[in-house]
């Protein structure tokens, strides 16, 4: 999806103004929601259904709602990228975090930015049951032994 540069900056300006005023920004609009998500392959059964951003105590607070539209449990790997206003990364690579989302469940991912420098973010998502992706941030190479 391509967003015109001007409208992108206008959106960013508006978000930045709301941050400066200390007002909660919620929820993120559908088109800008897509710009905050990086899906490693289109997820078939998991959908990001809501994304909220607020600035509390100088730190970015983010809540994402992931809905499992299937009736079976789904695994999800996710992590955040933290960026400053110029688009530079301000934090190391986060570890991938595994979650199990039950059938029909709406799971909330709530995070706080690690540093006040982070004013923007990307949510990177990967579900091992995607329809067109086989690579996964799981390092399992053989079955568990015990």
């Amino acid at each position, binding site marked *: 999806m391509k967003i015109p540069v001007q409208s992108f900056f206008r959106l960013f300006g508006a978000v930045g103004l709301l941050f400066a005023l200390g007002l909660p920004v919620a929820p993120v609009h559908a088109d800008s929601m897509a710009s905050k998500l990086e899906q490693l392959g289109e997820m078939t059964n998991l959908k990001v259904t809501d994304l909220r951003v607020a600035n*509390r*105590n100088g*730190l970015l607070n983010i809540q994402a709602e992931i809905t499992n539209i299937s009736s079976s449990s789904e695994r999800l*790997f996710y*992590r955040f990228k933290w960026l400053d206003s110029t688009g530079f990364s301000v*934090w190391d*690579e*986060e*570890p*991938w*975090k*595994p979650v199990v989302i039950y059938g029909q469940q709406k799971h909330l991912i709530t*995070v*706080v930015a*690690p*540093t*006040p420098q982070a004013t923007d973010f990307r949510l990177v998502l990967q579900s091992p049951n995607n329809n067109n992706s086989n690579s996964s*941030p*799981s*390092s*399992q*190479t*053989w079955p*568990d*032994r*015990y």
Partner: protein
Amino acid sequence: MNMQFPSKLLLSLTAALALSLGGCATNSSSPEVSSGPVKYGDAKAVETVTNEFGSTDLQTIAETMARSLLQSRPVVQARKTPLVTIAEVKNKTSEYIDTRAITDTIRTQLLKSGAVRFAVDTHAMQNQTDELIRQNQTGLYKKSTAKKIGQMEGADFRVEGNITSIVKRTSDIKDVYYKFSLMLVNNESGVIEWADEKEIRKTSTR
């Protein structure tokens, strides 16, 4: 008869052999020297090789705790950046876990955020006193540059905690539950100012 010819031939053959062997070890199209199934992987990947405490557990525990501590009242409402020291995180599980590796990562993340300063902890105290004694008592240093004894800053808070586990197994399932709890204690008043927990469940089937 010229006797030098065979030795020249031998020399050129040796050189050719050395070149061809060198060519085997490196692939000219890639900056990699490899001979076997060794590969670099993603250090942040979710590791589920076995059921024991692993890198993903360490990374997620440290990240959760550091982020939570950043939002605690003593850090958020501090008039000046609080000075914290790391006390011990006790390992009460049945397996070997280097809890210092966890607290080191927590400390690194908090320091990088800039919200907290850290004082030398008990493990690094020997180095600190050694250095001060070396500067002050060996007579080798200029008085003006020697760092004075008796100027160390006492920490306002200390971080301590413990990690416990519950392990259950049947003939075909092994379930491990870890609970990492951490707290921030005011060194002067002894009041626990903040505490948080991170739980992890890992189940493996045969």
